[in-house]
């Protein structure tokens, strides 16, 4: 997957988990949770969806890497490169 495809896929996952939120205008360098109503259970849903869709395991110590859209894409890109 390209960087852009990773971003699109992540946005699709988030929009399914928080369907009432406008995720398309998320600012890249600001914490996602500061911009939309996304709590810890929703965050775990994101981890689960990535696991189900791409068989990628994100260890708990890496969860802070998924704080913003930009950091998420940077972190996920190498993991999803062959997907």
């Amino acid at each position, binding site marked *: 997957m390209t960087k852009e495809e990773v971003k699109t896929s992540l946005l699709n996952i988030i929009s399914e988990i928080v*369907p*009432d*939120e406008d995720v398309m205008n998320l600012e890249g360098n600001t914490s996602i949770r500061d911009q939309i109503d996304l709590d810890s*259970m929703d965050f775990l*849903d994101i981890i*689960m969806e990535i*696991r189900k869709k791409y068989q990628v*395991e994100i260890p708990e110590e890496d969860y802070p890497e998924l704080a913003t859209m930009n950091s998420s894409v940077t972190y996920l890109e190498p993991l999803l490169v062959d997907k």
Partner: protein
Amino acid sequence: MLPGLKKRVVITGLGLTAPNGNSLKEYRKNLLEGKSGVQRFKTRYMDEVPAGVCDFDVLKYQKKKEARRGTRAGSIAIYCAHEAVKDSGIDFTNFDKSKIGIYLGITEHGNVETENEIYNIQQFSYDIKYWTHHHNPRTVANNPAGELSLNMGITGPHYTIGAACAAGNCGLIQGMQMLQLHEVDLALAGGVSESIHTFGIFASFKSQGALACHVDPTKASRPFDRDRNGIVVSEGGCIYMLERLEDALKREANIYGEIIGHAINSDAIDFVIPYGERQAECIELALQRAKVTPEQIDILSTHATATQVGDNQEAKAILRVFGNSPKTYINNTKSYIGHTMGAAGAIELAGNLPSFRDKTVHPTINLENPDPECMITNLVKNQPQQIKKADIILNNSFGMLGINSVVIVKRFEK
């Protein structure tokens, strides 16, 4: 001042979703027109089965995320409670939320989510790292009541009452008692069911030889008919707003009726086979508490689920208590909507409450060949019946493991 004002509990609002109506008005209209809400339904691993399916607007009172995170039973509870609050005309925004209690009857809860998760991990070779973190909050037994408390910001007590198919009445009784104890000032009480979303309930009834089947799903639920062949499983909910009479009068609330009698007892005989003798004792206890005789009951709403043995036992109980009561008219609502399980008692009572005003009893439909083994005088068959007096309704609700519940409601007059 009316006697016992602080202990008397009245119904001042209700909200419901039934397979044939999402408001009392629509539901009642369909009951009087003989319109069934049973349809063909696809459940996992089985051929199509007849089932009662509700089509209320989930997003009327829930955000998409809330509905996604929660359970069907939670959504049903939230819809019904909002409708009940609206119907009651109470100033809910300014009401002390710590003085509101939520008491919901359930037949079962958690099977839907558990089955879904097992199905889900089966696709990942049963690797439990794919098991959802939502499983526990979705399957705890208080879930539907808890989702309601979250949605409406109610901080008083919330819990469910597990009482098999007697649960709808039990929810009402619990709400009434908590008001009498002054534990709360408002009770949202009744029952909910999401059971059609678990294949297990259908499969278990099938294995027991108690699952209804018919080429025409609208004719599948046929209590007291000779050709009945089992239960139609349904989803649904009905939640009442209960208040002490004193408070209801103070705010000049519309009063549907007063709960004047109740009883809950146990057969202590069998896991699944009901026992008419104990049901009769339950009815008699409720009559005694209501201080009324069988002759004073104008309408009796039966529990009958269309199983061979269950309908016979209830008929025996009714014959024993009401054998000499020619003025009591008897009906069955499951013939239209199937068995809404934990909601049944509450939803079936609701269908009869408008009779206080229109003095019409909705009939039992699908009664093509009344079973001579179910000897019931004044069973209202297939066509609505006008009656001279509609002041008191008795509502039966019975469940597995031999739990029986009866509620008696009286038309309210100042």
